């Protein structure tokens, strides 16, 4: 037990990333507000970044840092377009509840 608490190693970082990813999955699956779903996606991307950096550190290879940088840029683009879609949806129907967006169902 003391070993787990005080001897922080790579496993700690990986498990933390996994927990973060699962919380993001939970936000996407459970919540119905489109904004919270976008935030869950951001959390998952961050968890993936943390895994990349941990493995990069573990192997002593900097390619993981480059990859994480590119992931951050793609996440920024994704957030801007996603929020634009949320604003456009809100313009039309005055709420952003994803359970009520059923026009494309038929």
């Amino acid at each position, binding site marked *: 037990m003391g070993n787990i608490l*005080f*001897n*922080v190693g*790579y*496993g*700690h*970082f*990986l*498990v*933390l990333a*996994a927990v*973060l990813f*699962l*919380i993001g999955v*939970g*936000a996407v699956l*459970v*919540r*119905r*507000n489109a*904004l*919270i779903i976008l*935030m869950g996606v*951001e*959390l998952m991307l*961050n968890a993936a*970044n*943390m895994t990349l*950096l*941990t493995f990069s*550190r573990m*192997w*002593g290879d*900097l*390619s993981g*840092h*480059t990859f*994480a*940088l*590119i992931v*951050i*840029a*793609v*996440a*920024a*683009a*994704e*957030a*801007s*377009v996603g*929020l*634009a*879609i*949320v*604003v*456009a949806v*809100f*313009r039309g129907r005055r709420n*952003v*509840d994803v359970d009520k967006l059923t026009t494309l169902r038929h």
Partner: protein
Amino acid sequence: MMRLLILITSAFLAWGAVDAMAPQAAYADPIPAQQGGNPRARVNIVKKSPHLDRVESRDKGMALLFWLFAAMTVGGALFVVTRRNLIAAVMGMVGSFLGISAIYMMLYAHFLSVVQMLVYAGAIMVLFVFVVMILNRPEDEPVAPSGRAGQVIGGLAILYLVGRLVMLLWKVQPPDPIKALAAPVATPEGHEWGTVKAVGTDLFNGGLFPFEAISILLLVAVVGAIAIARPLHAGQDNEGDIPEGEGH
């Protein structure tokens, strides 16, 4: 709850202090000081020598910091899932991102840590706050309704997934412990690992095409965001509570 947290923190700190007072012969200088030579050069070398590797060490203070930032990260993320108030969720997200940035710093990813703070906690979260302010609608029901059976099955599935992931990730070992630890610290260039210079060199040597593709992607995203968010008809802005000029 707060009292318990303070108690645990002070216990950690006391343990770390006792540990720091113990004689530590193991913390040797990775770069041996030159034999002989003038003292100024020796001081220079000692100053330039990379700091000790703390990720895989038994440093109590480092463990305390790791748990602190991990709690910050996970707590902020849980805040996002559970809060009904959207602004509270965004603030939890900011705290989570700051904790992640500190965790990156522990992984010797200094540049990525600063980028994380600037891009996520700075830019993306401001964007989220903007949109929340535009929407300005409290959520009626934060959680999708589901039956008792669905809850039980979902909970069991989540527990199984968590268990398998933790069991898998906990067993991960560095490929070659000596090499992995040696890469960032024990070489004369070790203290540059993960800095702007190192990451930039790697980015522009191997990742030049993705870099250029990212610039095009960002341009497309900016144009696409403006094209999507602008009102379709003139005068649509005036009917609702959306401030005029939004999206132009």
